[in-house]
């Protein structure tokens, strides 16, 4: 608080870590253009910007992963070079990545031990993890293998991994994107404590409300340049977003009054044992989605969302054929291609490697879900021209930014690839769309585009089922919301009358909240 004045004036008095006039070029592309920023002890500093604004490039330089082209990095006022992350860690700079850098086949403890100094014995690590986990309420089991953990749990490993090294500066890249509001609140308390301990935090987030709640100062990047520094608490989420994007973001239009059609997706009493030891079994899940309705499934990561998605998509087959009906036909025993042939579309959570093959071009990725329709294949041959044409349609309709005519999927930024894989399904004009984490790690503008597209789709009579951990998103576009917890799905509650607190309690597995007598899953 006391720094606010100097913060607004520009650079604070004695920054712990600062960058001055830093520029980073990749060939002819300038990712960071003369960026100046300072982090003071005991402050939480937000770094805001759209995907592609240069946030990741900047923090990679602060963490020794990239070397600046021009400009300098100052540590307690003295210029330094950071040849690698070890050098950054040695100074006391820790980083929690947005994309997890964990080894699936190792346990939580082994993954964390990898970045500990060699003097620490592997046997001591589980105890220390327990300590940290308890102190900050993370619920980590040190001996669980990472492959069995959800995205949310993996993120918490990354945070614990940093905290174990007792950093002076902690960089967090979208740390709350997979947490419940209650969990996020708990994290904020942790971060407040870290701040009170005199550490400096650099906080990257798209959740503007959260930046307002948490951060003392915000630096906004657009197209690699600093476009403003402000006190986020003095701004509105809308004004912050406008600074980030450079234009006013249109508010997502409500779906308007539209008649609900017949039930297009019906799941009745679906029991699906988990295929893996640490997975979540689905227990008597029932739901019904009508044409023209957006049905939201809320829940903390790792409570059966991926299992539910796999059962709905047909990547896992349901034990009973009639447990899942699409437009009245039993599809529980049919694979994903047959379900697509019944005009269902699916978008899984993971963009790279699941929704899209990263080393395939965009037009080849059109074939991934479209090979059964649209004349993309003839007599076993792929019609490359048709695939490229369809790809261009998606790119144009969803403003997918890319370089080159038909680039590899991996070269797109997260938000642009997400727009592509969502657009790919929407342009197939499905009757039912099941989508898992539609805007996870996506910038504000892309997220608004995707949400609007989903609402437009449902206005055309399509049934949309969204699985999301982002409650703002669910409240913004869902008609009804149900909560998944340890593989059980609650009754669906109307989004207009239910409160965030009620949903939050259900997400935390508190009974009582579910016994709301009003609207049942079979309304309206």
């Amino acid at each position, binding site marked *: 608080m006391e720094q606010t004045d100097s913060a607004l004036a520009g650079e604070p008095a004695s920054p712990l870590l600062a960058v001055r006039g830093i520029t980073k070029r990749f060939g002819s592309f300038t990712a960071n253009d003369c960026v100046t920023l300072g982090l003071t002890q005991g402050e939480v500093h937000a770094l805001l910007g759209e995907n592609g604004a240069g946030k990741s490039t900047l923090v990679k330089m602060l963490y020794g992963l990239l070397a600046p082209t021009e400009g300098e990095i100052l540590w307690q006022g003295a210029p330094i070079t950071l040849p690698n992350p070890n050098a950054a860690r040695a100074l006391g700079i820790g980083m929690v990545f947005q994309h997890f850098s964990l080894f699936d086949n190792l346990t939580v403890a082994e993954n964390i031990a990898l970045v500990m100094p060699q003097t620490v014995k592997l046997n001591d690590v589980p105890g220390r993890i327990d300590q940290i986990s308890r102190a900050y309420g993370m619920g980590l089991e040190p001996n669980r293998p990472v492959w069995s953990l959800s995205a949310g749990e993996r993120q918490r490993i990354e945070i614990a991994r940093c905290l174990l090294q007792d950093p002076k500066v902690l960089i967090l890249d979208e740390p709350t994107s997979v947490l419940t509001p209650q969990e996020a609140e708990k994290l904020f308390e942790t971060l407040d404590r870290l701040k009170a301990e005199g550490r400096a935090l650099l906080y990257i987030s798209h959740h503007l409300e959260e930046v307002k709640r948490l951060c003392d100062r915000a630096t906004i990047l657009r197209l690699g340049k600093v476009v403003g520094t402000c006190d986020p608490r003095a701004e509105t989420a809308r004004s912050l977003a406008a600074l980030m994007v450079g234009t006013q973001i249109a508010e997502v239009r409500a779906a308007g009054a539209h008649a609900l059609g017949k039930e297009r997706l019906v799941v009745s009493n679906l029991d699906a044992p988990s295929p893996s030891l640490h997975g979540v079994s689905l227990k008597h899940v029932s739901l019904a989605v009508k044409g023209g309705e957006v049905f939201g499934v809320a829940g903390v990561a790792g409570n059966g969302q991926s299992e539910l998605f796999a059962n709905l998509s047909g990547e896992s087959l349901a034990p009973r054929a009639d447990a899942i009906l699409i437009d009245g036909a039993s599809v529980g025993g049919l694979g994903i291609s047959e379900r697509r042939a019944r005009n269902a579309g699916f978008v899984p959570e993971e963009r790279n490697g*699941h929704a899209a*093959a990263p080393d395939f071009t965009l037009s080849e990725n059109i074939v991934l879900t479209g090979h059964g329709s649209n004349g993309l294949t003839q007599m076993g041959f792929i019609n490359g021209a048709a695939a490229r044409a369809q790809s261009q349609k998606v790119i144009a309709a969803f403003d997918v930014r890319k370089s080159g005519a038909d680039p590899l999927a991996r070269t797109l930024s997260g938000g642009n690839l997400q727009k592509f894989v969502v657009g790919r399904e929407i342009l197939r004009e499905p009757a039912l769309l099941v989508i898992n984490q539609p805007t996870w790690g996506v910038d504000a503008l892309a997220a608004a585009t995707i949400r609007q597209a989903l609402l437009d789709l449902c206005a055309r009579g399509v049934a949309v089922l969204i699985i999301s951990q982002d409650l703002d998103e669910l409240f913004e576009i869902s008609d009804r919301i149900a909560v998944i917890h340890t593989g059980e799905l609650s009754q669906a509650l109307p989004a207009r009358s239910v409160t965030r607190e009620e949903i939050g309690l259900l997400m935390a597995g508190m009974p009582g909240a579910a016994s709301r007598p009003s609207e049942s899953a079979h309304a309206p």
Partner: protein
Amino acid sequence: MRLDLYARPQRSTLREILAPIGAMIVAILIGGIVVALMGRSPLEAFDVYFIEPLSQSYSLQAIAVKATPLILIGVGLAFCYRANYWNIGAEGQFIAGGALGGWLGLLTHDGALQGALGSWWILPAMMILGALGGLLYAMIPALLRVWLNVSEILTSLMLVYVAQLGLDWLVRGPWKDPSGHNLPVSVVFDPVAQLPVLFEDGSLHLGVLLAPIAAVIAAVVFAKTLFGYQVRLVGSAPKAARFGGFNDRAIAVAAFAISGGLAGLAGVVEVSGKIQQLLPSISPGYGFSAIIVAFLGRLSPIGIFIAGLVLALTFVGGEDAQIAMHLPGDLTLAFQGVLLICVLAADVLARYSLRLTMGAKS
């Protein structure tokens, strides 16, 4: 002090083309050092290995004949390796195909079975049996892999020795030529069971044409068909392949079938076109050399076609070097091994840059 690998931000086509060429040059330099350590002239060895075979008609024909099995097997292996299944046992599938196809050559010996139908069907039937032999033999590791998750690397490799000993037993036992002075050889096939030569007095036989045909068809399959797409997808992003609705087990079995079938075809082509009888050993290690060919050709059928010719050159040059310079035949295999290591290293360097980090503690 240690070496670190850093992923290059961009892939460069030029670098990917230069990598195998650079690997060739480095391997030749290492080979030259070995020859020098053996007290011979590296320049003379280079001349004998790589220049002379290209200047004689008979050795050019020999290169084409030797390249044929390497290319056929290598093209098949590309299907397995692209799909991320590691068939190391093409040598065994080659022998199984040669034995099964060659068996028909033995059955039709001395005009047998050639009565009513004539003899036109014998060569096509041998080719089909050869491909079938290799295909069925490849099904053992393939099915063990998809049903029981047994490592196909181990099973396919071990089955090579089974095939080698099996053929050895057959040729020394039931298939031995009764009038062969007790030598471990079969009868010589009738001319109708031998692939005809393309030119008088040459060694170039009809089977040589199969190599470019297979390479072109495979190139089209990879680039244009949904099947080729599935093979690449299963290897590159298995989870996306399942999301696409493709059956990765079926793809694994199909890739092994193609790989084994082409290896078996190569085996029967070798037996019918070149050896013209069955011997206890019918391969100087083509099945293993073809692994090098597949990687040297970057798992692309056209690349494999070129790489097969290069490797065949080292085989022919190696034989010449044994005669002209008394260099051991194992030097050729050692050189091929060095070449594979150089190719794999060059692949890594094409995608990553190497940096020396001084005095960093981890």
